[in-house]
């Protein structure tokens, strides 16, 4: 993915701290030495190319409801079917296949803790697989982005 210096600077500068004011893109433009239109055009293009997955708020699930990381060890021949059942369960918002005995890792969300437990219990019954429930006990670094090493990228 070839990006010019202004695109790189845009990404480097706003993995957090995008200004929340009346004219956010104008405020960014002033910082970056671009015009407001250029900022909007670049952001739109980067989003269209899927270089940016989102431009806006990242919500804290634990403050807006309840969520929990869980994993199951699906037998390899049943993995597709189990993955589909997980994806269809209400509240599941991430599901990753990973190379391990515990091969399906997903995040279950719900409006509150009680509903969360009910959803996990129901999914566990449906899957007929023991579920590893891994609530966060403590966050040492919660997804705030990380510096992109542009030179190292292919």
């Amino acid at each position, binding site marked *: *993915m070839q990006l010019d210096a202004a695109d790189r600077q845009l990404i480097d500068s706003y*993995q957090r701290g995008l200004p*929340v004011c009346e004219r956010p893109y104008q405020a960014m433009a002033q910082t970056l030495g671009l015009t407001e239109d250029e900022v909007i055009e670049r952001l739109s293009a980067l989003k269209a190319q899927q*270089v940016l997955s989102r431009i806006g*708020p990242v919500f804290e699930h634990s403050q807006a*409801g309840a969520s929990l990381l869980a994993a199951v060890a699906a037998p390899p021949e049943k993995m597709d079917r189990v993955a589909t059942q997980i994806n269809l369960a209400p509240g599941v918002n991430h599901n990753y296949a990973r190379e391990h005995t515990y091969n399906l890792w997903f995040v279950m969300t719900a409006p509150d803790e009680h509903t969360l437990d009910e959803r996990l219990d129901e999914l566990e019954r449906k899957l007929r697989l023991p579920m590893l429930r891994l609530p966060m006990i403590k966050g040492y670094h919660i997804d705030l982005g990380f510096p992109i090493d542009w030179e190292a990228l292919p």
Partner: protein
Amino acid sequence: MSTSTLKSELLSDQDRELIMATQAGLPLVSDPWTELGSQLGMPASEVLERFQKMQASGVIRRVAAVPNHYKLGYRFNGMTVWDVADDAIAELGERVGELPFVSHCYRRPRHLPYWSYNLFAMVHGTSGDEVEDKAGRIADVLGDACSGHTILYSSAILKKTGLRLRKQKDNG
């Protein structure tokens, strides 16, 4: 965990609507608040004020241009997991979380005998070697307090959606 339930109940219906209207992103127009206001039937000033309040209360963790690391070339996503001595994890977890290449770092419970790892650190790389180098730097920080680790590479993203907040009919 009951405090998080309480906080979610403190969100008004208008806040929930604003979350749903912005979870895929802010409108890319000069005045995004007016655009959101016309969708939600609120004055732009109220939209901005509610947004700022959710930022202040921590419901909004950050406002960002969020890169798609895979698209940028970070093809390897390694969830590194570590078995760290309980009496050392508080201090060492902080230090691992401070490593610049660690994007998430959490303490989670063990489930013995099935799962012995209590520290999770997410690492991205352009190759498996790069992820392993970075895992080596985490191992250096943990030293003797760590009695085992492994790396779970992601082989497929089967689902990835934003936060969904629909109280009655949550279809995830």
